[in-house]
């Protein structure tokens, strides 16, 4: 995104946050988007989080082969890594691929088939009607998915660790309950909120300004996912730097 595009992005967001024409219709659209983002991504996030948690436990156990280090540390490291980094960031990158490409291609197709023009001719604020519900759904449902992901990642670590014999159930449980700092949850939720905004707004921008046909819609969709992923990683660093 160069500065011109960033300016257009800000102006589009400004238009998206104008007062809705009819709140009832917007609320319905928000709930539909929440269902799409939340329920629609739950299966994928669950599978990924559980396996990442399990693999993390095995890798930590592999690296910490020393009699001086208690095995309870495996649970602690897995817990903090899952909460602070893996659950928010990996979930966001996966969601950028799944939701971002869907948003970009949906809005892009509406652009090239003149459906957005039709909304504007009717006197409807097209950015507001199409983008605002997606952003609101994103910033509410991505944190919910991240919380579920944290839980499943830690649970996955328990399953992976105990099944492989890398750690006992008691050691793992002791590890995840020792020295827990609830502030890490706050940091993760701030990240999830920011990522939810990026995952929905960047693809919406890419789709909204598509020109051309099917090929350009596909290109915009790819661009949306790439820019979203880079933005997520950059914001991950900034938020971590600011809050930890």
């Amino acid at each position: 995104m160069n500065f011109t595009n960033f300016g257009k992005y800000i102006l589009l967001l400004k238009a998206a946050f104008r007062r809705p024409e009819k709140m009832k219709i917007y609320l319905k659209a928000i709930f539909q988007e929440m269902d799409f983002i939340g329920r629609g991504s739950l299966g994928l996030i669950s599978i990924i989080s559980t396996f990442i948690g399990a693999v993390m436990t095995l890798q930590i156990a592999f690296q910490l082969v020393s009699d001086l280090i208690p095995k309870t540390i495996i649970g602690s490291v897995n817990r903090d890594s899952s909460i602070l980094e893996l659950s928010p960031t990996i979930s966001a990158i996966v969601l950028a691929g799944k939701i971002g490409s869907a948003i970009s291609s949906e809005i892009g197709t509406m652009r090239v088939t003149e459906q957005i023009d039709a909304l504007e001719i009717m006197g409807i604020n097209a950015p507001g009607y199409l983008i605002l519900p997606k952003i609101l759904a994103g910033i509410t449902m991505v944190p919910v998915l991240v919380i579920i992901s944290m839980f499943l990642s830690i649970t996955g670590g328990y399953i992976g660790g105990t099944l492989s014999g890398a750690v006992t159930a008691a050691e793992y449980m002791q590890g995840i309950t020792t020295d827990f700092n609830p502030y890490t949850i706050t940091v993760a939720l701030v990240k999830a909120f920011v990522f939810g905004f990026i995952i929905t707004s960047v693809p919406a921008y890419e789709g909204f300004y598509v020109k051309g046909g099917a090929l350009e819609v596909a290109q915009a969709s790819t661009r949306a996912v790439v820019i979203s992923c880079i933005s997520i990683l950059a914001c991950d660093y900034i938020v971590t730097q600011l809050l930890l």
Partner: protein
Amino acid sequence: MIEIKDIHKSFGDNEVLKGISGKFQEGVTNLIIGGSGSGKTTLLKCMIGLHHPEQGHVYYDGREFTQLNFEERIEIRKEIGMLFQGSALFDSMTVEENIMFPLNMFTDQARSEKLDRVNFCLERVNLEGKNALYPAELSGGMKKRVGIARAIAMNPKYLFCDEPNSGLDPKTSIVIDELIKEITEEYNTTTIVVTHDMNSVMGIGDYIIFLHEGKKFWEGSNKEIAKTDIQELNDFVFASRFMKAAKDKL
């Protein structure tokens, strides 16, 4: 009535519209014709605010449109109905939901009232009972008719049609043309149709402006167009052998 004054529009170095003016009266079918790339659709988009002309003004019954901001334009846009070249129906909605959409957005009518209006509009375009179908289940002609039904749902004062016959067979084209003309006369709308379909020109062209290379080259009615001796217009209107033969017989 819609009046345009000295409309200029460029895309980069390409000046598409070079100072076009004209008056489009209500109750008659106004046509904008011209070859591909002559600026017809660009002119239409400048009139409805999808493009911003660099120079010139558009007046809707004396109300200046081009200088208004988004919120100020909404009141005029509520009075506009538009039929798009590709119909532009919302894919995710049924026929009924498509037509009801502007009513949901801008009126506080009860659902039964809105449904009555939807059924009236569908009946008007001869598509009774097609409420539950999705756009993907409709033929090209049916999509255009649903597009017209959606355009008239809010009782528009101004009706714009962008290439209403494109992709349709001649018989369906005539049905769409007649529908546009009937609605124009019935509701006394100011109707502007962008077309390069000669059947439409001869059939419903009460007032026609011919664009050539971004300029208004000629204006008149369908009766006058056959008698014109302007070379560019004759080359466009009577391009086919059939039309040439028809002209020679006149």
